[in-house]
């Protein structure tokens, strides 16, 4: 560990917040329908689809629109994946995906997960990458932000019924936020050496005189939205550790910053739109403290020489297995913490090669609920649910009816909060529990014991959390393709549908002024309470599984040293 490493972690997180803040102010104006500089373009979409953007939707209509759009996106992407060998822009001549892999990949990109059981450079055509995967990177991110905007409007409303119009939100968020940002970032990445071409590959002569085909494609455009939309699915299998996705330390910093930028911006936008800037700042502080603590924890773990290396009397240094020498331990640590806190899933090093504690922290970040700052939109609505839970717990302690941001929290909201929260546990632990006793699932593991359990637990955690990063080591199989697909679907819609139902109950309630009995939700006390609720909830659910995986593995590693 050194001061440079700590400074890098602080700078990266600080820059993310600094960029997210003004963006959040702008985003609030987009949510409010006040940004209309592309109104003629908007109108084309509305006319073509027969949508009246001024017509408000109830929570159920908004939810059905969200689900219908996701269904259409699934079918469209599934068709492209299956038929890519017959479609244009396939210079590599790649075959279509198998049905189970197409099912997994289509759900993966529609749910903003981007779990990849394929190598993009050797399996996906340019058309698949551009018209299939990259389009879904925009669409799934916009849909997530739309749900967050709907929840924000529920808090603004005073005995209302409308959460806004899903289709108008989708168009405006894409046109005014995601597209402009992606164009700028793609051009910057291109200037810094990330390729953007329709060539399939170039041939290089190796030192041994052999020919090597180096894959190319429209990488910069996909890289930009991959990080901005917290999608995480890379053009290459090696993701952001590949030199064409992430050529140097400047692109690495840009990718880290933009990965969290919109997550923080959503919270600022929420504060502006609802008129609760101080309360939103408290949520932001919780996010920064927790993602900072995770980055610090992983950095401490990864900066130590592994006990096995020490026992072998090799010169001590940080654990560099699975890390890019261009980036080193601090960059990998902060990237790992931010990608698991942000529901992004991109990686610039292999998470399986992290030390047991480093990998365990990364996995626990996903267990915490993907809200630090979480996926675009989904991070905001997840932490608002935790805030509702926190005021409910506080209300129980002092014997008052809980309120949050002027809305009374009653039994109905709490039931919906618990439905959303428990779906993650059921999916992660249920699917992992079944997989570790099924031979057809076990044979996909590259190792056994505690590390094998970590591989399986991480896979279902990542899928359910819509993160998409992989611990690696897990082989593909129809069983995993199908069950991980279902887990991704549960993690996205099992959470978002109750969130919209909560928005539906809150929108109809009167907005109350704070009284002497209202728990302040902007101070240090609430920040501490919220951190406590998030940690305790995730700890109670996932600590036993973590104890059998990374924690046991850590002690096995120490035992190895003692025996040598």
């Amino acid at each position, binding site marked *: 560990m050194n001061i440079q490493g700590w400074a890098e972690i602080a700078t990266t997180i600080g820059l993310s917040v600094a960029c997210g803040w003004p963006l959040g102010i702008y985003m609030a104006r987009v949510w409010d329908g006040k940004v209309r500089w592309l109104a003629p373009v908007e109108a084309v979409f509305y006319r073509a689809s027969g949508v009246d953007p001024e017509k408000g939707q109830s929570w*159920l209509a908004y939810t059905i629109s969200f689900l219908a759009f996701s269904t259409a996106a699934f079918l469209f992407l*599934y068709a492209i994946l299956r038929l890519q*060998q*017959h479609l244009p822009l396939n210079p590599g001549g790649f075959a279509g995906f198998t049905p189970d892999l197409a099912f997994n990949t289509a759900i993966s990109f529609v749910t903003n997960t981007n779990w990849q059981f394929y190598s993009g450079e050797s399996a996906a055509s340019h058309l698949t990458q551009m018209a299939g995967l990259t389009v879904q990177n925009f669409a799934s991110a916009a849909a997530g932000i739309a749900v967050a905007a709907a929840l924000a409007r529920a808090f603004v409303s005073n005995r209302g019924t409308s959460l806004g119009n899903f289709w108008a939100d989708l168009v405006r968020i894409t046109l005014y936020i995601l597209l402009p940002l992606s164009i700028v970032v793609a051009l910057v990445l291109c200037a810094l050496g990330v390729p*953007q071409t329709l060539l399939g590959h170039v041939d290089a002569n190796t030192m041994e005189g052999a020919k090597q085909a180096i894959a190319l494609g429209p990488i910069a455009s996909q890289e930009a939205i991959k990080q901005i939309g917290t999608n995480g699915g890379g053009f290459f299998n090696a993701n952001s550790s590949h030199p064409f996705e992430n050529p140097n330390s400047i692109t690495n910093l840009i990718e880290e910053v933009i990965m969290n930028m919109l997550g923080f911006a959503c919270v600022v936008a929420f504060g502006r739109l609802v008129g609760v800037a101080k309360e939103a700042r408290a949520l932001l502080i919780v996010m920064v403290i927790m993602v900072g603590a995770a980055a610090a924890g992983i950095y401490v773990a990864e900066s130590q020489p592994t006990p096995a290396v020490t026992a072998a009397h090799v010169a001590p240094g940080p654990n560099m297995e699975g890390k890019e020498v261009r980036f080193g331990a601090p960059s990998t640590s902060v990237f790992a913490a931010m990608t698991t806190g942000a529901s992004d899933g991109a990686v610039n090093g292999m998470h399986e090669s992290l030390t047991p504690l480093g990998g365990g922290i990364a996995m626990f970040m996903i267990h915490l609920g993907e809200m630090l700052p979480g996926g675009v939109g989904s991070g905001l609505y997840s932490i608002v649910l935790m805030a509702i839970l926190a005021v409910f717990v506080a209300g129980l302690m002092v014997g008052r009816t809980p309120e949050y941001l002027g809305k009374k929290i009653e039994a109905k909201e709490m039931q919906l909060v618990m439905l959303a929260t428990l779906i993650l546990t059921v999916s992660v632990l249920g699917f992992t529990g079944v997989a570790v006793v099924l031979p057809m699932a076990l044979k996909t593991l590259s190792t056994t014991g505690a590390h094998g359990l970590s591989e399986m637990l991480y896979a279902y955690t990542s899928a359910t959390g819509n993160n998409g990063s992989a611990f690696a080591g897990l082989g593909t199989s129809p069983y995993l393709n199908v069950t991980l697909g279902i887990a991704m679907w549960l993690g996205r819609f099992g959470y978002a*549908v109750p969130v919209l139902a909560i928005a539906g109950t809150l929108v109809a309630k009167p907005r109350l002024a704070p009284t002497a009995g209202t728990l302040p939700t902007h101070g240090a006390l609430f920040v501490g309470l919220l951190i406590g609720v998030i940690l305790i909830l995730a700890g109670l659910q996932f600590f036993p599984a973590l104890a059998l995986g990374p924690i046991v593995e850590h002690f096995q590693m120490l035992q190895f040293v003692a025996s040598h």
Partner: protein
Amino acid sequence: VRSDIVFTPPLSALAAIAGDPLWALGIVSTLATEFDMDFIFIAAGVALFAAFAGYAALLRRI
């Protein structure tokens, strides 16, 4: 990275699409030979989403 491999003009993409008219025939062929598995996965995907529409309707009763 060489500058000539970094960027391809968008018109080249359009030309590539227009120059391959046989792709529609391939789609029909694939659908005809492998429709059974596709039917299962497409039906499963649509059913998953439809189930959540039903779930949302149920949540109204809470």
